[in-house]
């Protein structure tokens, strides 16, 4: 019998260690990111803000500083974590369902569809709450998914053509969004929406955080329950079906779940590119492709990644803020090209 060039383990680092390290790194990152940025805030002040708001007897900060930290900074950092996690698991799931290493909500045009839906709700003032904007985004996301599947017809989802079609659909929805924006809103609203369209954590508040975090948590659990099915898709639909996976229904559940996750994210912070590409590829390299570990680890890593990218976006050109999507794209584009090259399509 042939024995290979040295057996490789499933994961480069033992999994329990990886999980523990991930959780610790996330907590440290959250605390660190909360003290980075405008305002002279240290860990001591941060502790006093937290203490004050959960009713501990601590010396309060000046009102302005307190509300800066409590109303803006803390929800923003937490939002970055939730959004990073949601985008990372969406990417991991889409890559498995489509058997396409380049699949990701932004590249498939889903984020753009969600943007259009959200803008329609905001501009037409159907009600600007976090829930209604998310609902509008979901309609847009499902519309773009539907368009993608309709354009691809019965042909497979594995090729570069899928991403090409997704990008074209993204451009279409992008154009529609701007058209709606220019036609029907005033200059101030337009400026605010433009910033959000580029993907920015700045508008994060507790109410939108609550919606996003709740949907994100449910989404992670639902998708995690499909881990085995996601593994089964590795060899195509016939093999998946022969393993007892109801391919049509499973695909529907998974695509709708990723659309929901993408929608709440876009409704809260706009379309952020490439997180869903960068993070799962990194985790697969570290811990292997099995979804039972890939999904939770991607969630952790996505959270950490976006918390730091957002911190960078706050301080890089302070006091001006760079939309965080700019930085994720700067990291993501080279990776995209690398994946394309490895597939021999560049």
């Amino acid at each position, binding site marked *: 019998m042939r024995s290979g060039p040295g057996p490789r383990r499933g994961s480069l680092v033992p999994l329990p260690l990886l999980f523990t390290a991930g959780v610790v790194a996330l907590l440290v990152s959250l605390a660190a990111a909360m003290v980075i940025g405008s305002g002279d805030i240290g860990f001591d002040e941060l502790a006093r803000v937290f203490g004050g708001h959960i009713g501990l007897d601590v010396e309060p900060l000046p009102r302005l500083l307190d509300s800066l930290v409590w109303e803006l900074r803390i929800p923003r950092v937490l939002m970055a974590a939730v959004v990073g996690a949601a985008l990372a698991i969406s990417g991991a799931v889409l890559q498995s369902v489509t058997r396409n290493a380049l699949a990701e909500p932004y590249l498939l045009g889903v984020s753009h569809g969600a943007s259009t839906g959200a803008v329609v709700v905001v501009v037409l003032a159907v009600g600007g709450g976090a829930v209604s904007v998310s609902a509008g985004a979901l309609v847009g996301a499902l519309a773009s998914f539907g368009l993608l599947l309709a354009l691809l017809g019965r042909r497979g989802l594995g090729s570069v053509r899928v991403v090409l079609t997704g990008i074209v659909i993204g451009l279409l929805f992008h154009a529609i969004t701007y058209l709606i924006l220019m036609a029907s809103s005033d200059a101030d609203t337009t400026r605010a929406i433009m910033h959000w369209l580029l993907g920015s954590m700045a508008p994060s508040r507790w109410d939108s955080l609550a919606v996003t975090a709740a949907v994100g948590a449910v989404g992670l659990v639902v998708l995690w329950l499909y881990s085995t099915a996601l593994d089964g898709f590795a060899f195509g639909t016939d093999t998946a*079906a022969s393993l007892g996976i*109801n391919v049509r229904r499973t695909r529907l559940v998974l695509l709708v779940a990723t659309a929901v996750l993408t929608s709440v994210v876009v409704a809260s912070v706009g379309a952020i590119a490439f997180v869903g590409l960068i993070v799962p590829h990194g985790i*697969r390299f570290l811990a292997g492709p099995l979804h039972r570990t890939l999904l939770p680890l991607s969630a952790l890593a996505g959270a950490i990644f976006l918390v730091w990218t957002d911190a960078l976006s706050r301080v890089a050109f302070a006091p001006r803020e760079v939309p965080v999507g700019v930085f994720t794209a700067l990291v993501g584009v080279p990776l995209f090209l690398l994946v394309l090259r490895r597939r021999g399509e560049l």
Partner: protein
Amino acid sequence: MRIAAENLGWAANGRTIIRGITVEIGSGQTVGLIGPNGSGKSSLLRCLAGLRAPTAGAVRYNDEDITGWPTRRIAQHLAFVEQASESDSDLRVVDVVSLGRTPFRDRWRGLSPADHAIVDAALDHLDLAGLRDRHWNTLSGGERQRAHIARAFAQRPWAILLDEPTNHLDIRHQFELMDLLAGTGQTVLVALHDLALAARYCDRLILLSEGELVADGPPDEVLTRDRLREVYEIDAEIGQDSLGHLSITYHGVPDIEEAATGAATMSRMDSPSP
């Protein structure tokens, strides 16, 4: 366990692929499914494996019509190995074989100790224990095919259906693979291109032509000179080699033979499937 097709027909996009096929496969048999390219072998296998819904007739497992069975229930009875099933995913051999436990798994839990034992047994059975932690992209074609078959064994099915598993394998690996399949007492239905290989390893052959069943029986009864000429349009001599195995000597395509004179030994059957 019996798997039966009853007057089975399947059409896609208005084109009939197979029609009127009635066969039954009983326990422990190694049955070969043969026929020229496009004769409907893959479609018949897929209908029997519950992957395509028949457009006429029925598929029965132990006399029970499987129409409307959940995919999971079918997978608890029957395993299917596709022709060259590839993946970009960098799964390890043990992960691929563990996929065979999918139809029995609980969503909330990982593999049970019993599952692990079954997976280990399947790895041993296919002589893959040493490759357990190897990654998919480092395996040869033969190793990948063996991993898929181990995955099928890990499903602990009543029967394993395989679609041309020896394609893309060199001759030694073809023999090794057939030794593994035929030597276990597992019920196997295997589509094959190589008639000599089919004759040597199968208890019984089912011959399809243009979507219909042409012959069904022991290899020496199914493989006759006239039938090869009729179904494969090939001139061949059927005999026995020195070890007593059925041997086939191909003389070529009849009309080319006449035109070219001499022993053209080319064979249409070696051309790859479309």
